[in-house]
């Protein structure tokens, strides 16, 4: 066996470094978007794009407008100005339903799971948009509805297997530890088979091991399913390791945009994170 196999980087970086995945054309672009809540300017005139197949990180200090930006992208918030172009269609306002049916799915900073439902049902909920049979058929739970459910259940089981959460398949998610709930939420987002996955702080509150696992899941999703990922994350180590390009926001403005290396060297970014003496 060759000796060079020993010099593999750490697990998190490995799948990424050795992959031959392709970064394609722009799949979503945000142009001159501004968003204000009354007098508070959450986002001012921000433009950036996300290319197909890449992992795009949005970082910035607290209150920089990162979550607002995600909310604008998937239609939770409606910008006062600017446009969002997704898959070639230019919109001034995105609607959540359109975003979802067009292949954008997301997870939330503060978790938005159905706490009383099991892991299985929560992830199954992610398949709702893909179910074709109506309420009556579903209620009868027979014939085409049944075969449809079996098909979707299979897809859900694959996700459960992928995220290694077999042991909590039937546990009510409200009782699960935080790290696992985050994983279930990712599972639900994946159940939609999204083209663009928005992750709002997927690793907040996790320990090192959970972060490593989560990084591996994100990389594998991106690598093997070709899913484009946009994520907000505070752990700079993770961001710099797994993302292709990083956009940095501060006080609602874009202050830098580029590869992790470029961004790390940018004086404005350093100032924003480390502070600056006036």
């Amino acid at each position: 066996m060759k000796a060079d196999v020993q010099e593999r980087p750490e697990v998190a970086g490995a799948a990424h470094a050795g992959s031959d995945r392709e970064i394609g054309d722009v799949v979503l672009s945000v142009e001159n978007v501004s968003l204000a809540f009354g007098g508070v300017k959450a986002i001012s005139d921000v433009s950036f794009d996300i290319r197909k197949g890449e992992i795009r990180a949005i970082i910035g200090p607290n209150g920089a407008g990162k979550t607002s930006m995600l909310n604008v992208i998937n239609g939770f918030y409606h910008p006062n100005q600017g446009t969002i172009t997704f898959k070639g269609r230019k919109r001034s306002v995105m609607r959540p339903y359109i975003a979802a049916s067009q292949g954008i799915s997301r997870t939330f900073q503060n978790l938005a799971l159905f706490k009383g439902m099991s892991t299985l049902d929560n992830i199954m909920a992610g398949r709702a948009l893909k179910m074709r049979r109506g309420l009556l058929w579903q209620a009868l739970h027979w014939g085409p509805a049944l075969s449809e459910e079996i098909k979707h259940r299979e897809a859900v089981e694959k996700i459960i297997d992928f995220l290694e959460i077999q042991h909590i398949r039937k546990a009510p998610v409200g009782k699960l530890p935080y790290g696992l709930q985050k994983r279930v939420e990712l599972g639900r987002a994946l159940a939609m088979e999204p083209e663009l996955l928005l992750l709002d702080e997927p690793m907040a509150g996790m320990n090192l091991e959970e972060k490593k696992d989560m990084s591996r899941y994100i990389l594998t999703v991106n690598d093997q399913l070709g899913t484009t990922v946009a994520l907000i994350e505070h752990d700079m180590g993770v961001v710099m390791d797994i993302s292709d390009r990083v956009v940095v926001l501060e006080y609602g403005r874009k202050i830098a945009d580029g590869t992790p290396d470029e961004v790390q060297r940018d004086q404005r970014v350093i100032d924003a994170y480390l502070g600056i003496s006036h």
Partner: protein
Amino acid sequence: MNASIAPADASASALDTVPKLLLHNARQYGSRPAFREKAFGIWQTWTWAQTKDEIEAFAVGLELLGLKAGETVAIIGDNRPHLYWAFCAAQSLGAIPVPVYQDSVADEMSYVLTHAEVKFAIVENQEQVDKVLSVAGDVGTIRKIIYNDERGLQKYDANDLVSIESLQEAGRKALKSDPAVRKAWLDGIAAGKGSDVSVVLYTSGTTGRPKGVMLTQENVVVSGRNANLFDHFTPDDTMIAYLPMAWVGDHIFSYGQAFAGALCVSCPESPETIIEDRREIGPTYFFAPPRVFENMLTQIMVRMEDAGGLKKGVFDYFLKVARRVGEPMLDGRPVSFGDRLRYRLGDLLVYGPLRNRMGFSNLRVAYTAGEAIGPELFSFFRSLGMNLKQLYGQTEASVFITLQPNGEVYPETVGKPGPDVQIKIAENGEVLFKSPGVFLRYYKNDDATAETKTADGWVHTGDAGFIDQRGHLRIIDRAKDVGRLTDGTLFAPKYIENRLKFYPEIKEAVAIGHGREFVTVLINIDLTSVGNWAERNNVIYASYQELAAHPDVYTMIEKRIDELNKSLASEEMVAGSQIRRFLILHKELDADDGELTRTQKVRRSFIADRYAPLITALYDGTKRCLIKTEVTFEDGRKGVIEGDVKIVDMKKYPPVKAAVREAAE
């Protein structure tokens, strides 16, 4: 009569290797289930006939890859049908499987792979592939890694890896295109002998580096067959395989016994789902080390604490009934009609549902071994109607040395010699045995072989014990661990540690005393049990360390040790080894830090080194001691835990046994 016995005997003697048993089972029990595995939430079953086809294709694939007779193959992963098949496939080619503990860190793995000179590694998934790749350079002999689960491996260098699936595909193609291939495979199996080396099992290494125990085909096959006879197992019996495949117990139970008796082996979906999976399968045969039963009991009790008054009342009442009549009923001893009726009712309301909850509704026989089990814990499960028994064994014996026969179960003993096993006690108290399971030798370690195995075939177990008047063996300690205090009093550390561990609050204990004036102990509290107590008593804590240092926890442990001292005082042999000082460790003992073996046994000498300042403090009269300990996290990084540990003095009781006996007489 004779005529009918002769062929049966002949066929039994011909079935002297596991691959031969495979062919036999495929013919005899072709449509019966052999292996089950849960995949995507659904149990998948392979019959014996299908198992034979799978193994055949696997074996031919391995041969095409260049595996030759006499070469060694590492097998690493959680219990999976494909990995069990890997054993048989390799053996059918005359190659020797070497299972490796799946949770061993790269360094430990490197030692075993290098020592065994493995040519191929058959592994479960990416995690194991990564580990093997990281040591492959040092090992130097590995030609290919064969994996079961493809996830995450697509982008790896294909020169290093091949999947079991594609290997089997190649095997099937070869079998289809050329009938000679199958014939060659079958001829190879027919040429196999009982005296062939079947497997090399590395012992977990309580002391020093692991040793490779070489077992022959006969060792495994006869041990499996004898065990099946002892407990009357039939092809209707089923078990769940969840203990490490590298451990001799799993190898004999889930492989030797399963093939010898055509039993069905079920593999859980993941290590975390065992409890659920066990409930779904309902095994009839179950093995677990004492701590698994301990966890089950703790969980039941914790949940009952939270139950409503009525439920709790019913539970307590019927548990009392079970404690009184459960074991006599299990052993077939006479029990009054009223009690029988009460027990039946209890079975309906409490015991049955409890057994169901734990997945033991169909259980016929359960064994525990590896460590002494608390008498109360043991009786608890037996009183619920579970036929839980103890056995005593080791890798060098292909497990079985003694077993408790049905109806003769005494918690303090480990039973009578198994079928065809002889035991004797040496002068220094060490137990020696001779059996069909006696290992061939240690791999590349003739010195150790000579030390362990006498010229006339007796094997030193290294355990000290005696045979009681009922003919049952009782183990007290490791022979070399039995020491003496400076005043000459006998000191059996394990005896004291086990007595301490029987208290639910104490998870682990290390007793010190050899060559010292008195006995002291280091304690690990049980986080589940003490944590639950803390919750109920509004004691707030953030970590093990904080809880362990809590004054109330100290008081609780002090009370327990006082109880033990009182009881030790009444036992003539050990009255002198009452505990005089103790402390609660600031961290949990962990295999990752080398403090426990992979099978969770305490590594005494290592601990003595690591905690030398604490041990000094135990003997120089100080009340507090500051200690800094390096810890290894699961991902291999290191950190430091610092703690200020309190030391408590205990009261010594005068030996009372003699006085009591005189008074009684």
